[in-house]
Each structure stands twice: as C-alpha cells, then as structure tokens.
C-alpha cells in the first residue's frame, strides 16, 4: 500500500496538480482580460463606477495565477 500511495503522489498526476493547472490557466486568462479592460471597462463597471477603479478581473487573475502557479509547480508530475 505504501509503495502504491507513493506512486500516486509522485509519478502520477496529483489531484492538486489538476487544480493548480486549471487555476493557472484561468488566472492568466483573467489577467489578460483585466489588462484589456483597463481602458475598455465592461458594462457592469460602467454602471458601478466605484468598481472600475478596483480592477477586480485583473487582481483576481493575479491571485488565481499565484495560487495555480504554486500548486502546479509544487505537485508537478514526476516530483519526488
């Protein structure tokens, strides 16, 4: 059992790696969208001007990129 568990957590793809890679991908998409929106605010931010100055898409994208990047590297395939 120990050997098998070791295989699951190292040589195979970890569940945390799946979480990390998806969050990293979403984070990058949001960062790019957020940068584009700096000069072209979306309709909801036009309706709520206080929201525009917070740049939620950009900041949330950075948070997800950091979270996803950490988990993708920490649980990358083949890591002992």
């Amino acid at each position, binding site marked *: *059992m120990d050997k*098998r*568990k070791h295989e*699951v*957590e190292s040589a*195979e*793809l970890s*569940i945390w790696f*799946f*979480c990390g*890679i*998806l*969050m990293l*991908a*979403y984070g990058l*998409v*949001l960062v790019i*969208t*957020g940068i584009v*929106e700096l000069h072209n*605010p*979306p*309709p*909801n*931010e036009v*309706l*709520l001007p*206080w*929201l525009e100055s*917070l740049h*939620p*898409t950009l900041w*949330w*994208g950075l948070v*997800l990129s950091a979270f996803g990047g950490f988990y993708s590297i920490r649980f990358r395939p083949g890591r002992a």
Partner: protein
Amino acid sequence: MQVFAALLLITHQLTRLAPVDVLILLLYFALVVFIGFYAKGKANTSEDFFLAGREMTAWIAGLSFVSANLGSLELMGWAGAAYQYGILAAHWYWIGAIPAMLFLGIVMMPFYYISKTHSVPGYLHLRFGEAARGLSAISFALMTILMSGVNMFAMAVVMQTVLGWNITFSIWVGAATVALYVMLGGLRSAIINEVLQFVLIWAGAAMIPILGLIEAGGWTNLKAQIAANVGRSDYTHLWSTVGHFSDNPMGVHWTGIVFGLGFVISFGYWTTDFLVVQRVLSAHNLRAAKMAPVIGAAFKMAVPFIVILPGLLALAVLKNPDGSMMHLVPESVAAATGQHSYNEVLPLMLIRYCGPGLLGLGITALVAGFMSGMAGNVSAFSTVWTYDIYGAFINKKASDKHYVAMGRWSTVIGMLVSIGAAYLVMNAASIMDYVQALFSFFIAPLFGTVILGMLWKRATHWGGFLGLLAGTASSIGMFVWVKLNDGALQYIAMSTDAKPMAENLYRALWSWIICVVVTVVVSLMTKPVPTEQLSGLVYGVTPIPDDGATTIWQKPIFWAIVVIVVFFILNLIFW
C-alpha cells in the same frame, strides 16, 4: 425544499457570455474529459472503481466529502433562502452540518472503516441482515438516480434562464460528459472532479461577497442597511429570534432547529447518506478516514461566506437600473409580474459584480457544481446497484472483473434513466418537490437504525428492519397528512404559528423517534445476536484499532475540538 422546485420556474434570460467566458467554460470541459481518460487506467479492480482504490489522503477525501454536498442547486437555493429568511439560512451550514460531520469522523467512521464495507447498505447487511440492506439499497438507488435527473434538469433550466441555452442541449451535453468520466474512472474520477469543483466554486463565487462587502461598507453597515430596507432587525440574527415561531422570518422554533435539523436531519444526512460517506471510505487509512470529515467540517463552516452572505448583501445593495431598490419576490409572483425571484439572487449578484472573464468563471463554477451533483449521485448509484442489489440478490458469485463491468454499465444506464427523470421533471415540475420529500423519508429513520446498530449490541435483525420500515412509513404518513390537510402541521410542529419549513424539521424528528422506539421494543422481544457476530460492527464488542497518531497535531480528536470551538464562536458572534 420548495426553493429548489422554484428554480425551475424562472422564465427570462439574464445575460450572455463573451468569447473569453466561453473559453473558460471550454477549458473546464476539456480538463474534465481528460481526467476521465486519465483515471480509466487506474480503475481495474472493483476496489479501484467503487472506492478509488482506498488510497485517498485525508485532505482529498475531506474536500470531496464536503464538495459532494456543494452542488449548484444548494448554492442557488440557499442564497435565495438567505434573501428570503435572512441569516437563519446559515443554520443549514453550521448546526445542520458541523456536529454531525465531527460525529461521523470521531465516533462512526471507525466502524464503517474497519468493517471494510463498500457501502452503507453493506453495513446494514453485516449488522441487520439482508432485509434491512434490501430496503435501504433499493430506496437509495431510486433516490440517487432521481436526484441525478433533478440536478440535470435544474442545470439545463439555469443555463437557459441565465444564458438562453437550449434545455435539451444542456441536458445531453452535461449527461454525456458526466457519464463519460464516471464510466471511465469510477469514484476516482468523481473525486478528482469534486475537489476541482470545490476550488472552482471558491474561485468563481468569492468575488461576490468581497466586492459586496466593499460596496456595503462592511458588516456593521450591511446590517444597518438590511434593517432599514426590510423594516425589521431579525434578518441578521441566528438565535436571538427563534424563541417563538412568530418572531423570525422563517417561522421556526429553536427546538426544531436544534433537535430536528441539528440532530436528526443533519446526523441522518451526514452519517448515513452513502453519497457523502462513500467519499470518506476512499481514505487510505483509519486516521485519514477520521480526519476527512473533520477537514470537511472546517471548510463547510466557511461556505456561508459565498452562499448566505450574497443573499444578505442583495437585501442591501441590489438595485434596479433606475437606482431604486430591487425587490425579489416568490416564484409564483415573479411568473405573474415579470420581476426577479429569490432564486435568481446568486446569478444577479454575479452579473452585478463580474464582467467578462469573471462571469465565465462564475458560470463555469455553477456548471461544475451541477455536473458534480450528477456524478456524485450516479457513482453512488453504481456502487449500491452493483454491490447491494445486483451482487446481493441477482448474481452473487461473479468475478471481480464482471462487477467492474457491471459498475461501468450501470453508470451509463443510470445516466440514461436520469435523463428520463429530467424530462419527467420538465413535464411536471411538482415532481421535484416529491423527489426531495422522498429523499427525506428515508434519511432520518436510517440514522436511527445505523446509530442503534453501532452503539447498542442488543439491537436485533428484526428490530433494525422493522424500526427502519416503521420510521419510513410514519414519515410518508405525516407528509401525506399535511398534503391532504394543512391544519395537520400544527400537530406535527406542535404550534399553530409553524410555517412549512418547520414541517421538515419536526417530521424528521418524529420519524426518527418512531424508528428508535420500534427498534428498541422489537429488539427486546426477539433473540439477541450472538456477541461474536458483532465484532467489528458494534461499540463495546469491537477493539478500535490505533489510528497511528503519535503527536497531538496528528490526532483527529484535537482538530475536531478546534473546529467545534470555532463553530461555537461563530454562533455567538452572529447570535
């Protein structure tokens, strides 16, 4: 429960997706299908397929355990309930979950785990014989497949109303994707997706309370705004208003909350519903199996932040385009007036704060929640069908390979039946109310049977079976009584001021009491089970193996105490 059925009646499209939102949704579907093919290579034996090889860590089993209950029906329904009833809805996440989850981990899990059962009906078989197993397996299989169909249809309706998607398209794409990844990878595939869904729901929904609190100016200002807008201050108190049925928006009494919800319904669901217990049985050792519900409880306590808080925020900040306060209404009124209903509160708040990208993430989280709900039900169905119906009554001596094949086929067939159930619900929305009620018929009495089986060695086979039967029959009887005569509610809830929400709480409490009384009386009248046959199944005759914890930080009981202390603090803060 009515809030779920009401979701089906929303009739107008709220928003549309930008290309970046579609990209986010497609990325999710691509990863889910990849996970199915990836997990297929590791689902060769029945233990692999039905219990994920029993090799999950405490964190994975714990997140999967809590995620199996974090479907989109629950998210949208309870956010709407928070708008309608205020913070009282948080009881379903705190007292209605935390004590039971900790009890499962610390007291009950050792018996489930060391008996090496594959399912809850399997435990009933070991403890009470074939009749109790048959009754619980057949009722559970029927309910899970219907619930899967309800999830499927609810997803299709939400996609239609929020985005304008075709209902049939949503049903078949959702069903095919879930069938593919569960059939290929079994429980492992379902668990990976549930953990993924848990992370995704937080990523997709957390912006609503964060930005909402910024807009409202913090919790204190939020409370003041809610009190001003609704004209009463009882929407933000958990306990101080439940001294009498008429003192709170929900029409409930603290005895119903504590004994009906906090004890019977909660313990019944979290400790005997195989859909959630199956996740913990996949843990790789006894300590992980005990820790998983404790970890799940810690995360469960945080869920009101993304479910209840958005409902409360909407009472303070949700406005019409002209700047006036938006008033959400019951479904029946919304259908007639064209206003938005309570159950649209989460999508409305999502649209308010989230532009392209963030909106796609929120919608993907909702889709993931619905698909995870289907996968959880269909994987539990597949296990109970294969082990406790097919393997127990139809073909007892097949090879392990045959049972794995049966598991895969029953997944596909279960999904097809679910699609049929989804179309059935489409043509008669009131069926959804009955499906929810049917589920509640079995859970409370089942908890009575299981808990007596584990803690009382004198309980006999006939006692267990007849107690379960009597509890279930009495629950159905009370439901029919109230349906036929509204006045019956005052006798079941013991107050003329009780509202429909109170019925569920007291019906569960009475059916549990009837189950326990019948089990005890019949057991005392029948021949005891020899003690040697109870080893590994009952407290007092089973040596509990050491869970291997060497330091206090490794002990599940230590973390359970930490969680319960935080639980009490939260209840005091929002008293």
